[in-house]
């Protein structure tokens, strides 16, 4: 077999969508094996010595961010559907979200800081909504 025939490949258009993903998957697999082979022991040792729940996580802030963000994402299109194509879903949901996040991240929850957080939560979405949705006519949720 000549080199040329060894290198020749034909790709059928109808199945061409699988060619590159297959190649990539194989390379990925080889690399994974290589990593495990060269550093598997170190990785295992590290994993083994880890506590099952990492310490020192600020649970409230971390999970608060996640839960808040998920709620925000769910609420936006839902609210937006009541006022179609106005961007109000974004506007109405961003205010409480911003306020909640600002307060969540705050360490000294005194009156002054809460005021600033509240003002910011109202002003920032207003400006963004006005500029993008009203002035530039960009679609928001």
């Amino acid at each position, binding site marked *: 077999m000549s080199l040329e025939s060894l290198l020749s490949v034909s790709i059928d*258009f109808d199945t061409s969508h699988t060619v590159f993903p297959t190649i990539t998957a194989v390379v990925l697999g080889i690399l994974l094996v290589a990593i495990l082979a060269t550093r598997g022991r170190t990785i295992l040792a590290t994993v083994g010595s880890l506590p099952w729940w990492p310490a020192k996580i600020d649970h409230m802030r971390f999970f608060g961010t996640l839960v808040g963000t998920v709620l925000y994402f769910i609420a936006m299109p839902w609210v937006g559907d009541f*006022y*179609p*194509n106005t961007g109000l879903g974004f*506007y109405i949901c961003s205010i409480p979200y911003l306020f909640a996040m600002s307060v969540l991240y705050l360490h000294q929850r005194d009156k002054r800081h809460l005021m600033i957080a509240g003002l910011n939560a109202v002003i920032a979405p207003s400006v963004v909504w006005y500029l993008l949705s009203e002035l530039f006519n960009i679609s928001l949720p």
Partner: protein
Amino acid sequence: MTGFFKTLATAAGFAAMVASPIIANAAELPSNVRLVIGSKSTGGDTYQNSAIVAEALSKKLDINVKVDAVGVSEAFKALDRDSRGTTLMMFHDGAYMGNLYGVRGYDNIFEKYNVGATVSINPGNAYLVAKDSPFRSMEDVFAAAAAGQRIRVAIQAGGVSEIGLSAMKNAAKIMYPGAEENIVAVNTGSQADKNQLLFDRQADVINGSVQANEQFTQLAQDDQKAMRFIWVTAREETIKQANPEGMGNTTSEELLGYTTPNVSVTIDGKKDFTFDKEFFFIFNKDMDPAIIETIDNALAEIYAEGKIQETQKNSFFIPNFLPSTEASAYLKDKSETIRKIISSISTK
């Protein structure tokens, strides 16, 4: 700072908006309409045609119509979700061709949606060869295919770009049975890719458009980039409606030299195949028919005024208004013709 006062004013208006969210009159279009289109590009012909119509409708109905270039699959999804008339769609013949070519994800729009008014035609769909190519006409191409030469045609699969190729194969089959096997697709993407295939001589014929390729036809023959039109798929009557200046250095008169009857790609041995890329509305099946009527009436008035035609013609589009019922029947017919061509050349 005036921006601040504007924001204040908006806030007041905002309170009013919140108070009355739901659309008052069913026959009226909602005050904020989103026109999604089947293209992701805001520089392309679908966007331009949609923007022209959206602006005219906005003015006529005193509402806000916003064009969003979300692309085919997202556009259909958005349309599926909304039967209130707040989301409308505009696209071209590609909307049903995907289904005819069996492309995954394309439903039969005549069943799943209501097909609405047509608004315009892009008459520019064309096929080109390199200027130094031995093929100087479609006849040469057919003859070469009949003589057993492999003709590679660069297209984008499953849509408007492919239909001309299907028609060529169909014509070859009628004139020289068996020759259709020698006309083969080179599946590629954008116009840039198609041009590049011609520059590399990796394709013998490419799909292109009068708008995008005309300047290449004006180059000297020894230029690697020089091209020649061999077929413009539009109907003769369509090109006749274009401004006489045509496009660039090619007048409408000259363009007629590349359409039927001067170039013949037969459909059944008697009639020539023609294809106009038409833009039309697609509506959610459950949307209030009164809204369709409102749009039809508004468009009828807009076209009666005659200003939109000028705008369209200036961008080399041909005005082509048909109210929804007529348009739907007409397009259904058109799709049947195309279905026949596709099934006649299908080897399966």
